[in-house]
């Protein structure tokens, strides 16, 4: 029991990161993690290691998130991109930060299914197989969700080039 508590504890930073990326709201994300931990503690005596603790915790978090969305039907508030675009873009770090802001705003526009799948793989570094198992979907479905998410992100970010006003787009590809 203490060992499983250790394993749960080790996953909390990753759960917070994932919840933050899903909701883009600090307190909503921590609510989600807290609910997830409550539910996990309640179930830990029943849990048998058919999957990793990490995969188990993420699937609990996702189930709570889906239940919440159904109850509240509340869309995430879009990030005010306009105010950010006004900041001067100086140097590479700034440009990376703007790209991050841009992609995070675009992620918020993705359907929840695609967002969940893409973030498990890219942000949490789940293998494709582990991500599919955590989401309870076949591998082919996972790959097509990731593919659609990537294309939608690409279209969304390419439509808004003014996010780096002082940096010509071609500079980005120079390495």
């Amino acid at each position, binding site marked *: 029991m203490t060992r499983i*508590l250790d394993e*749960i*504890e080790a996953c*909390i*930073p990753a759960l*917070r*990161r994932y919840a*933050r*990326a899903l909701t883009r709201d600090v307190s909503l994300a*921590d609510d989600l*993690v*807290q*609910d*997830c*931990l*409550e*539910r*996990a*503690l*309640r*179930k830990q005596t*029943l*849990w*048998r290691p*058919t999957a990793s603790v990490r995969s*188990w915790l993420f*699937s*609990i978090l996702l*189930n*709570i998130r*889906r*239940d*919440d969305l*159904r*109850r509240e039907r509340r869309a995430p508030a879009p990030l005010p991109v306009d105010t950010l675009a006004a900041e001067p873009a100086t140097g590479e770090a700034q440009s*990376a*930060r703007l*790209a*991050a*802001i*841009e*992609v*995070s705003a675009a992620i918020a526009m993705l359907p929840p299914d695609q967002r969940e799948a893409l*973030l498990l*793989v*890219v*942000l949490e570094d789940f*293998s*494709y197989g582990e991500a599919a198992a955590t989401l*309870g979907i076949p591998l082919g479905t996972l790959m097509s969700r*990731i*593919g659609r998410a*990537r*294309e939608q*992100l*690409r279209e969304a*970010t*390419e439509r808004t080039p003014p996010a780096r006003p002082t940096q010509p787009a071609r500079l*980005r*590809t120079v390495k």
Partner: protein
Amino acid sequence: MTAERHPIREEDLIAYADGRLGADRRGEVESWLRDHPNDAARVDAWRHQNEAIRTAFGPVAAEPLPARLDVRRMAAARRAGSGRRYAMAAAAVVLLVLGAAGGWMGRGVFAPPAGSVSLIAEALDAHRLYASEVVHPVEVKSDDEAHLSSWLSKRLGIVLVIPDLSADGFRLIGGRLLPAGGQAAAQYMYENDEGQRITLFIVPAGKESRSAFRYASSDKLEALFWSNDKIACAIVGDLPRDALKDIATRAYKQFG
């Protein structure tokens, strides 16, 4: 030549961008990308997406944890019987009253017809409201199963068993009493190891009596309805229809 035998698919491009291809396949994809600048541009954009996503959210994991996410403290509080639950009881009461008032007002305005359609709608609403509740998902918990069964039987005026769905991986959390179409309804809630929840919503059978299984789906929730000469029951969950049907069949047999 190799590329002709194993054409490069979208999945290969994605796995390449994610750095998850073996060395052989990676070489094949690289030679494909040299000849297909459009795909090369897409893969390049995906890699930038990956970097941007990690830049945007990666640092969250390094932030200090707030006290409320201290899992050891939470575990200790659970063992001690938890003072926190008491603090959250007020919120749950408000929710309960809202649920009841919403149901009552809705009934006055919409006056739903008797029968399966309104029952399924009420079962779906009740599921949405309570399945997301973490601290008080039920009124009476499963550790008091005998009391739960006799209490709900008495209130519904029928002998009501509590189906055992553990063969499907679902364990009883507990149940509650709800209003439905001017009469009492029982809701049982079950949960599996992954935290997925299903609910059974039960009212005494009306005049229409027996029916075959009927399905409805709404916002990714599947509902399955049937009635026999004693009860009408709707089972609700975010499960594939076949899985829900297996569970419903098991419950149906136990209701007798």
